[in-house]
């Protein structure tokens, strides 16, 4: 037996402990086979048969399942072993005395990285403390969510105030004589923006298929943001490009191919999203660990197999004015000012300053402002960023909306909110409340992964997207794992989820008496929390 020393990683240090019931185990081997982390292995245990254990003949060999102890191959609690065990003989149990994080840093001299979301207590979630409290009762009639008509759409792209539309009047008609910034009406939910590489080819394609299907077969004009990991040329050349919002972030990955393909595009993209920052790791650039940089990811991004750490900022952009000119102008020009160009920033104390500036931009080239709250997800980040940086989304959306109101320019740059929506199971309610607070729409990424079968959660379950060993085949580039994912089923689940969301949005609009999106209707909201009421300027109710 190997010697055991104090300053080593022990089973008791790990975040999850495998509970194994030998009496139920039939030694079928499925649990050890399925574990993508190599966190458990079959193992021969020596047991005492009789007499003194120093005598070899007094021991017997027993085949058991053993938990491995290592920084690279420890259990993350994903639960796949339990899923495949015919007898319920094995289970990962949360270790309350976990010392993993401290051991990792002490041993490696590196920051801890993982995927997932900020593992914070969600009990105090602001959105859950807000209710829709202004119900149509006699003052005006509530609507029938199923049988009446609703229009759940929002503009995407720069909206000019009416006096700047440059309309001319000819008798009883208005005529439009000048070119106006591009603006499209879309469903107020945007899928995004997860890059190829961060998620598997199948997961990415499933979202793309679901997006196309929702548009063409269901009639929900949902848009998908590509993330910044390149885009397959076949998609760029297809008519489905019109549902895609192309992302450009600090890495500019894949843009050479986009530019190259422009002459062959049959449709304009739905928009362009300049990503400045991300809610899950604000102030930090993209991070793709080498083990996920597979061959096609290398090709599409134009990089070798290495840890890809994008810079936290776009090189050459040091002020809002420069950003507007370099990024917005260039991106607008790329498609000859036909495609809305929006920006995504991590929610921050500074968001309002940015929004104010963009609203005042005289060239009207900013077509949307995406704010990502700190409960957003990521494929990989330093845990220190995930858990300790960022800003909640709710008050920031409200602040931005009210800043626009103060300028008299609400709605001119549509606001989209994201970050942790659906975290406590009510995606439609989260979306509705944010819209009432002033958002034009919402965006969601990680929630799609959960719809697809991600087994992770916000209480440290799995969160191993960064390792490339995603047991669901969602955030992995390994063939053996990716192929666990059923593209058709995932797309179908996303489609169904959005149809359900659409019904649920109507179920919230109807009692408020709204047949169109209640953007800024904060009068519809109440809260039982005095501080929330005061901060968001909504009615305090007890």
């Amino acid at each position, binding site marked *: 037996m190997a010697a055991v020393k104090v300053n080593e990683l022990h089973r008791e240090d790990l975040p999850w402990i495998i509970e194994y019931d030998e009496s139920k185990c039939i030694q079928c081997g499925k649990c050890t086979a399925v574990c993508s982390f190599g966190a458990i292995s079959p193992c021969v245990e020596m047991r005492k048969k009789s007499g003194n254990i120093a005598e070899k003949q007094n021991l017997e060999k027993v085949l058991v399942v053993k938990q491995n102890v290592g920084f690279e191959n420890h259990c993350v609690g994903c639960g796949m072993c339990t899923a495949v065990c015919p007898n319920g003989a094995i289970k990962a149990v949360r270790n309350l005395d976990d010392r993993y994080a401290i051991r990792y840093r002490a041993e490696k001299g590196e920051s801890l990285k993982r995927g997932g979301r900020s593992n914070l207590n969600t009990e105090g979630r602001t959105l859950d403390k807000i209710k829709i409290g202004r119900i149509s009762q006699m003052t005006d009639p509530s609507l029938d969510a199923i049988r009446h008509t609703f229009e759940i759409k929002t503009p995407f792209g720069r909206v000019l105030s009416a006096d700047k539309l440059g309309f001319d009047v000819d*008798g009883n008609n*208005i005529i439009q004589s000048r070119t106006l910034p591009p603006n499209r009406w879309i469903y107020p939910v945007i899928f995004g923006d997860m890059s190829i590489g961060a998620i598997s080819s199948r997961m990415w394609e499933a979202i793309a298929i679901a997006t196309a299907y929702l548009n063409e077969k269901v009639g929900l004009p949902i848009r998908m943001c590509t993330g910044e990991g390149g885009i397959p040329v076949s998609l760029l050349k297809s008519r489905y490009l019109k549902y895609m919002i192309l992302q450009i972030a600090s890495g500019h990955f894949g843009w050479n191919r986009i530019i190259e393909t422009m002459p062959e595009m049959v449709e304009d993209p739905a928009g362009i999203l300049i990503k400045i920052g991300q809610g899950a790791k604000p102030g930090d650039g993209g991070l793709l660990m080498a083990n996920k940089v597979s061959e096609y990811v290398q090709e599409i991004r134009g990089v070798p197999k290495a840890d890809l750490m994008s810079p936290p900022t776009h090189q050459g952009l040091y002020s809002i004015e420069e950003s507007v000119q370099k990024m917005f102008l260039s991106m607008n020009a790329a498609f000859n000012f036909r495609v809305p160009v929006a920006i995504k920033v991590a929610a921050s104390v500074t968001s309002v300053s940015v929004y104010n500036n963009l609203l005042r931009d005289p060239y009207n080239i900013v077509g949307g402002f995406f704010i990502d709250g700190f409960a957003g997800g990521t494929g990989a980040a330093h845990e220190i960023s995930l858990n300790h940086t960022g800003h909640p989304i709710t008050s920031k959306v409200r602040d931005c909306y009210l800043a626009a109101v103060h300028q008299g320019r609400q*709605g001119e740059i549509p606001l989209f909110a994201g970050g942790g929506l659906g975290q406590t199971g009510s995606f439609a309610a989260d979306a509705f409340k944010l819209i009432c607070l002033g958002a034009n729409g919402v965006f969601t990424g990680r929630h799609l992964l959960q719809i697809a079968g991600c087994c992770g959660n916000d209480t440290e379950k799995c969160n191993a997207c960064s390792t490339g060993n995603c047991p669901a085949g969602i955030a992995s580039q390994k063939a053996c794992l990716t192929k666990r994912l059923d593209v058709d089923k995932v797309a179908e689940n996303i489609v169904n989820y959005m149809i359900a969301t659409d019904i649920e949005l109507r179920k919230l609009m109807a009692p408020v008496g709204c047949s169109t999106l209640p953007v800024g209707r904060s009068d519809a909201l109440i809260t039982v929390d005095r501080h929330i009421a005061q901060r968001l300027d909504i009615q305090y109710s007890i």
Partner: protein
Amino acid sequence: MCRIGAIKSKKYLHPSIALKLMRSQQEGHDDSGFAFIMQDLGGIFEHHKDLPILSMAGTVEGTRKAEDILLNLGFKRVLQWTPNINHQKGLKIEPMPNYMFEVVQYPKSHKYATQEEKEELLIDTALKIRKALEEDNSGYIYAFWPDTLVLKEIGSPKDIGTYFSLWEENTELCSKVITAQCRQNTNYDIVRYAAHPFFLEGYTVLANGENTFYEKNRLYQQNLNRAYIGFESDSQCFLYTLHYLHKILKWPIQYYKHVITPLPIEKIEKRTDKDILLRIKASLSHLEINGPNTVLGVLPDYSMVCVCDSKKLRPVVIGRNDDMVVMTSEVAGINELLPDRDLSKDIYPTENETIVIKEDLTVERWQQ
């Protein structure tokens, strides 16, 4: 609920007609107030059509303050009219001490001023008076505009009529356009400013129903124009939107409907003017109304307008003969005024229509 009415006539009418119009609709409102606006004035005002008239109610102090402000700015009194008050006991009314309707001459400084400059002066003056009256709660200014007279009071419309001797017809007080509403703003505190019709720079609006997008409308309008103030009633938003669209943006009245009740995208997409309508829908999305409403309006050229919400959740009907067009909530009111009209010529506006009654009483119907 409010009951609203608007009358346009070729001949001068006494406001008793408004009391008669609203009388049969009593159970449709709650008997809590009566207000009316007379435009295109006759009688004693007929020869002063170009001169502004101050319509206000206040304490002695309040009316004095208003007069001082006018005098200080150089306005000169031309004519003053006060209603003949009937102090009969037991009337259900909460009167103010003084009611003042004063025709004034523009200050000398504005003798050669443009129309626009004169209008600016009137708005500034009205805002100044309102502010002064609000300081010590000494009164209410309803309008300061040529050819326009406004009276609002709290109480039973019948008794308000009796109090101001409005049931007795005379030729002194008459006009060709009369808009009237019964009910006070009983959802909230009773405030005189909350009573329709609302008036701003030649635009009059009355509305029936709840503006469920009040918060959105208000937040947007408060920055659009310095005269968009008060918001004591959610229906004021309809006036400000009308004023903004027609006076500030100078858009044709047909587009009012496209602003307050924009068509669904799928309908717009099928139209040749879709680019314009989509822009309007996006740019003025904060002026949309989404509740149950009928809106009646009078434009500066004294044409009358009627539109409804897109679900047609509030009543309205238009009856007419050769001399008069009457728009009101319930046909019972029209039956009182025009019992022998041709019923088949009555108009029941639909949820998609804009109805305009032109100067010669011809009717234009615009489908959205």
